[in-house]
């Protein structure tokens, strides 16, 4: 890694000397800056496993309680259309995988608020790092944690009797969908953090959406068995697309009901539109988060 050195120019005046000291230029690239921040946030995650565990507890409780309490009733609703005999465990696991992504992404902004409150944010703003890379590195560390959590949920689901029709490739695909799904909510949580600079507001602002998003989607029951107004709301709910994509990989077939796409074959009629919608959402909200961070100054920090 080379480090360019820039020196000042000699002044043209009598008696003056070349006195400007050497200024070492940073050799960092965008990816280098991403890596620096990725590493830092991973160290912090390992030092503070509380966040990893707490954001996993609730989805696990949901997985166990929902399958035990609603299992029998829900199984009838799932199979009402005569589409075979899917267990509620199999139906629910993709929803819980997305719930994990949502619950973990909620905490993302809290880390940023901590940085702001502890004056680390200002220190980072004065460092010669690309601010989009600062956000990307932090998000990458959090997404890694989410992927690990989804893997844990899938393993637990299989232990409880869920079946992933697409096998290991499908499981990896579900993790990829979880990754794609989490970006927009991570961005949303960080947007709240930059705008409010307050832990409570960030937590409340993100949490308040978590359960409406989950329940007003295809997560826990087929949309056809839900009231009409929920079916309408579900069309505009990103959770529907995340869950449908993950569920398509679990069941190995097209499950999307909110959009009637037939341009592709089988499972891709669900995956392609879901991935496209989530990607657009990620780009839009990620862009807003990066914009806010890029224009952040210390007056924003306080």
């Amino acid at each position, binding site marked *: *890694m*080379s*480090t360019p050195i*820039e020196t*000042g*120019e*000699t*002044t*043209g*005046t*009598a*008696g*003056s*000397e070349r*006195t*400007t*000291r*050497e*200024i*070492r*230029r*940073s*050799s*960092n690239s965008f990816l*280098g*800056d991403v*890596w*620096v921040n990725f*590493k*830092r946030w991973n*160290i*912090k995650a390992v*030092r*503070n496993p509380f966040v990893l565990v707490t954001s996993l507890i609730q989805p696990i409780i949901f997985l166990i309680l929902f399958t035990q309490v609603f299992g029998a009733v829900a199984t009838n609703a799932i199979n009402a259309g005569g589409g075979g005999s899917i267990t509620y465990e199999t139906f629910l696991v993709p929803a819980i995988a997305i719930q994990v992504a949502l619950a973990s992404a909620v905490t993302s902004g809290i880390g940023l608020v901590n940085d702001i409150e*502890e*004056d*680390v944010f*200002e*220190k*980072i*703003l*004065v*460092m*010669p*790092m690309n601010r989009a890379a600062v956000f990307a590195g932090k998000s990458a560390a959090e997404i890694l944690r989410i992927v690990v959590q989804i893997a844990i949920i899938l393993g637990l689901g299989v232990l409880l009797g869920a079946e992933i029709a697409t096998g290991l490739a499908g499981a990896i695909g579900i993790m990829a969908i979880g990754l794609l799904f989490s970006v927009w909510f991570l961005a949303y949580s960080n947007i709240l953090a930059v705008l409010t600079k307050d832990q409570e507001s960030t937590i409340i602002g993100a949490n308040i959406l978590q359960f409406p998003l989950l329940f007003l989607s295809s997560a826990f029951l087929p949309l056809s068995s839900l009231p009409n107004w929920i079916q309408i709301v579900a069309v505009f709910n990103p959770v529907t697309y995340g869950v449908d994509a993950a569920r398509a990989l679990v069941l190995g077939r097209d499950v999307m009901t909110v959009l009637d796409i037939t341009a592709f074959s089988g499972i891709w009629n669900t995956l392609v539109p879901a991935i496209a919608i989530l990607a657009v959402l990620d780009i839009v909200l990620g862009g807003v988060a990066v914009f806010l961070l890029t224009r952040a*100054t*210390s*007056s924003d920090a306080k």
Partner: protein
Amino acid sequence: MSRRTNGHHPEESPDGEEANAVDGAGGTTGNRGKALSIETDGLQLIYSDGTEAVRDVSLSVPEGEFFGFLGANGAGKTTAIKVLATLLKPTNGEAFINGFDAESEPREIRESIGYMAQEIGIDEELTARENLQFACAAYGVPRGERSERIEELLALVDLAEVADQRSESFSGGMQKRLDAATALVHRPPLVFLDEPTTGLDPKARNRLWEYFREINEEGTTIFLTTQYLEEADQLCERISVLLDGEIVATGSPTELKRRVGGEILDIDIEAGAETEEGDGKDPRERAAAVASDSELFESEAMIETTEEGISVTSQRARSRGTDLLVALRDAGLTVTGFNVRAPTLDDVFLAITDGEEREPNKESDPDEEEADEARVATDGGESR
């Protein structure tokens, strides 16, 4: 990329011989021929609520100088340093830091400065070493140099023995020292220190002072803000006094002290000392009247009452002090103690912030400065 050097510095004299760097408020330096680490012109910052935190700040800080911004809380020191460190965009004016334009080259500036905020900015979940590793990576210090640099800095700030402990277990002084070290990893030619010793005990403060002196002796330019007069006096070659966001005086500590107008004679008068000559007046007021009427100090003296007695600021404080003591005794007043001392920066600071001495933020030459000093001395402190 443009880099500005003193080749076109406005203080250059027309005949080609370079003048000493002269700051915007008239202070002079001995940094003849040096390039400028900081050069600002008419810097102004207005917050969105309309508060004008920095107004018309023009200053020049040559390379290698230990420069101080002295001011009370709310004077605009921190806002000014944040503008210079690219954390805030100025509303008006321009700033060149290490030759780079703050408006168009913020990244270049960030690469070439160290910044230590008033509040400690370390990650407490990381160890001291990890904090330094993060800073090295963030500043792009070449990998091959990082280990050596980190060990060097840990030794410099006396944290080598606790390098692998989480910094949340550190005392405030240790955290400050670590914070300072993270600002130095890339050997910046210019370091901004915003009230670096606020809240530290005297021992920790003295240790930080030693580190700052050490890096300054190695050639690093240091821009310090402080509300501690002693700190500015001890460390800074040159000081600008900031009042309501505006530079009201600049000079070396000695120059500023000289502006107070000579030495200070403090005389303690026995309270309630009455003689047959007394007319019921406060003995301190009578003493001040005696000093004033004695014509010992002519018109340039500043005579004030203090809690203990009176204070006379005059070029003749030492030579005429004994005569004044005799005059006070003859007036029936009892002197319980006296002391002749050089003015401290406290005297300068108080004089300025009380509106006793005020000058516009403009360039001035030494002759004008002398004239200003005389005017301050004779008119007792007209607001300028």
